[in-house]
């Protein structure tokens, strides 16, 4: 398939199928997009990169008719078009896999794929038989082992993403947009996605690919466009550039190495987990965690790491097993108890579990620390602002003011707020579930630096991540989970990508 890529590059001449010019979009207090020009070519992948808040998703939403631009023009195959609604965009064959999976839990997989463009019978009624058959074909063509009649609810996040992809494919599209499609996907699934992308290229579809992961970008993209603070700061062919140059364009400065892991010699055991089990989600999970240690949890999405962590945090009740903190029983009944005892969990699902989007930044950050910032139950705003400022600055947050609603921040900046709010509780053990999911290189470095500082200060850290480099770069020890069980344990010195991936995917089990 790499051949096909070259073929496309040779047929450089092809006219752009979609052209954006002078696109601008402002939100209260933000100019999210400023006079953007972008061209998408048939049979080519254009990578769109930029820091959090650079305006990538906003552009996607404009191209799919969800937001209306303040100004600018869009032409499709030379004709001027307007995209008043998402429906219009679909009609013109512009389809997108959005940053956050936007699907319907209660509906069947098949209906999720065809909702809005279902096959009809002669009488204009929905043709369910045809619909199911076509859904089955598409899923098969993707090699996704998903039953079209299953309810989406019963799928893992990963499979949900695959359904989103299937939906995009089900539409006779000439423009396919992917906004961080790999964020929730495992190594294996990412590979499958890339195969699909090559197929789409062969069909001559124009693809816009948004990602923060450079290895992926260099792997699939033919062209690049870089955004900074809502402006287009550069575009060109991938073959004429390399990572450092892109990064410089992105952040307007060069970034120091991504994994500043300080060497810490772990102290005494802080957390001790024994045969923790749950009826449906995981079985005999045992491990211990030391002061200053960073324990990485690796696995494919859906391996059940989140569930284990949420049990430690008192969200889910285990069916058996024990948890000890400093030797004392510490199986939390609820998050409040967990926080009291010094165990905190930075959740993975930012929107649903992390950020309170309707409240201002400072109130989000102070929320778990209200006991500290308030006096005998009464709020003290000064304290809250102080706390908020401290952590938003350490995490290099981008916001117009601490009273700005979190909902109006970009995905990445929201994540910073969430992390900040947990660090503010000064915990003993901090569990980070996908801490850098959807965060750009600049902030990622900041977060990593921060994590190892915390470790150096003697904090015990569990880091759940599906990103191999992150796991290998940051962890003292790594536990790999597969299908709800521990599939392997590795010390930092014996870490090697190959084995980790294998163990996670269960290709050839080599348990520790």
């Amino acid at each position: 398939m790499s051949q096909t890529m070259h073929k496309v590059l040779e047929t450089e001449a092809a006219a752009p199928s979609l052209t954006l010019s002078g696109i601008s979009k402002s939100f209260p207090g933000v100019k999210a997009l400023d006079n953007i020009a972008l061209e998408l070519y048939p049979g080519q992948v254009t990578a769109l990169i930029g820091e959090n808040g650079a305006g990538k998703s906003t552009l996607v939403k404009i191209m799919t008719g969800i937001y209306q631009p303040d100004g600018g023009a869009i032409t499709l195959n030379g004709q001027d078009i307007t995209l008043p609604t998402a429906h219009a965009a679909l009609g013109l064959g512009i389809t997108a896999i959005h940053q956050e999976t936007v699907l319907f839990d209660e509906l069947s997989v098949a209906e999720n794929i065809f909702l809005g463009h279902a096959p009809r019978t002669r009488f204009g009624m929905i043709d369910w038989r045809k619909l199911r058959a076509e859904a089955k074909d598409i899923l098969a063509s993707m090699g996704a082992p998903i039953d079209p009649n299953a309810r989406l609810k019963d799928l893992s996040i990963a499979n949900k993403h695959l359904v989103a992809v299937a939906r995009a494919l089900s539409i006779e599209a000439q423009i396919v947009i992917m906004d961080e499609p790999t964020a929730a996907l495992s190594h294996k699934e990412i590979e499958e996605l890339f195969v699909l992308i090559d197929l789409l290229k062969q069909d001559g579809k124009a693809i816009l690919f948004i990602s923060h992961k450079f290895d992926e970008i260099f792997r699939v993209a033919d062209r690049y466009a870089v955004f900074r603070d809502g402006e287009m700061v550069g575009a060109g062919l991938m073959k004429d550039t390399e990572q450092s140059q892109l990064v410089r364009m992105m952040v307007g400065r060069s970034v120091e190495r991504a994994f500043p892991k300080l060497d810490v010699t772990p102290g005494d055991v802080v957390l001790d987990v024994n045969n923790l089990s749950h009826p449906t989600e995981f079985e005999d999970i045992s491990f211990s965690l030391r002061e200053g240690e960073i324990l990485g949890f690796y696995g494919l999405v859906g391996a059940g790491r989140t569930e284990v962590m949420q049990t430690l945090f008192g969200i889910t009740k285990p069916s058996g097993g024990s948890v000890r903190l400093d030797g004392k029983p510490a199986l939390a009944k609820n998050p409040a108890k967990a926080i009291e005892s010094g165990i905190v969990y930075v959740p993975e699902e930012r929107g649903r579990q992390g950020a309170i989007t309707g409240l201002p930044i400072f109130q989000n950050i102070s929320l778990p620390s209200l006991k500290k910032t308030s006096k005998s139950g009464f709020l003290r705003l000064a304290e809250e602002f102080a706390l908020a400022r401290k952590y938003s600055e350490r995490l290099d947050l981008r916001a117009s003011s601490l009273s700005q609603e979190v909902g109006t921040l970009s995905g990445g900046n929201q994540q910073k707020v969430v992390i900040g709010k947990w660090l503010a509780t000064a915990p003993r053990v901090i569990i980070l579930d996908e801490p850098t999911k959807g965060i750009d290189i600049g902030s990622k470095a900041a977060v990593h630096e921060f994590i190892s500082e915390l470790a150096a200060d003697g904090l015990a850290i569990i880091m759940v991540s599906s990103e191999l480099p992150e796991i290998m770069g940051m962890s003292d020890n790594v536990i790999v989970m597969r299908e709800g069980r521990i599939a392997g344990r590795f010390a930092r010195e014996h870490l090697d990508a190959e084995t980790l991936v294998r163990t996670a995917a269960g290709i050839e089990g080599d348990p520790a």
Partner: protein
Amino acid sequence: MSAVSHSPRNIPDRLESPFKSALKSWEMLLIIVAIAIFVANSFASPYFLNPWSLSDATFNFTEKAIIALAMAMVIISGEIDLSVASIIALASTAMGFALQFGVDTPTLVAIGLLVGVACGAFNGMLVSGLGLPSIVVTIGTMSLFRGIAYIVLGDQAFRGYPSDFAFFGQGYVWWVISFELVLFLALAVVFYIILHRTSFGRSVFAIGNNPVAAQFSGIRVRRIKFILFILTGLMSGVAAVLLTSRLGSTRPSIAFAWELEVVTMVVLGGVSILGGAGSIFGVVIAAFIMGLVTFGLGLLNVPGIVMSIFIGLMLISVIGLPVVIRRVRARMAA
């Protein structure tokens, strides 16, 4: 924002002073509306500007408004309690029942409040304990509570409350200032502090915005909701004492259909029915607005049902107008 400055070092606390944002607030709009209505009334009827008349007028809403204070918190937390009026009926019936055994006034009051709390606890148990949707739960308990009152009282009425009991609903603290009014204002201050000045209140807002994230942040969501329903029950109990004292008798039909008026009051007060936003101050002004409107129209002998049209229109337009205005502004800007 990112576009504004690149250096993280200077994120201001606020973009504009609290005072300036207050001027733009919903409460400001309400105050203007209230003043407008007051002026309009004084022109419309020669009888309006009379201290005793105005004092009488306050009786029309103080009890409802007292419940509205608690209801506001429940609604901000993303729930709703439609059983408040029925709680009044049950609490009042309980007091009347106790009366048959010749208990004294303090005991009567205690019973009224206790029954209120009990009913609230029952709602709270169903909603936060079993995690049921409050709107349907309280539609059910609405019939249940009043139904029990009917079983106890049937077509009878409890009369003959002790004379000192009359003070709560008919007494005056000073000149035309009734006890009900004073109690309402006092409670308003208390609720203002609870909602806007304590971490409990902050948690209520957090829950209303995103219950899951709130729980992850260590907020005891269920417990707080439970407390909120008890609080509503308690305030309904208070209202039951006041109303029973004002009517001097109890029938199972007492306070019929009040729940919707209370909700209307809260919504007019700028509390988001979807939860997560609102203020006690707004609710207080809204209470006065509704009192002024109904009383003003009453002075003109506008039939009650036409009055309710007016309230309905007011409800929709007060919520709708800001949207329209925003739209128009946007139009002109573009």
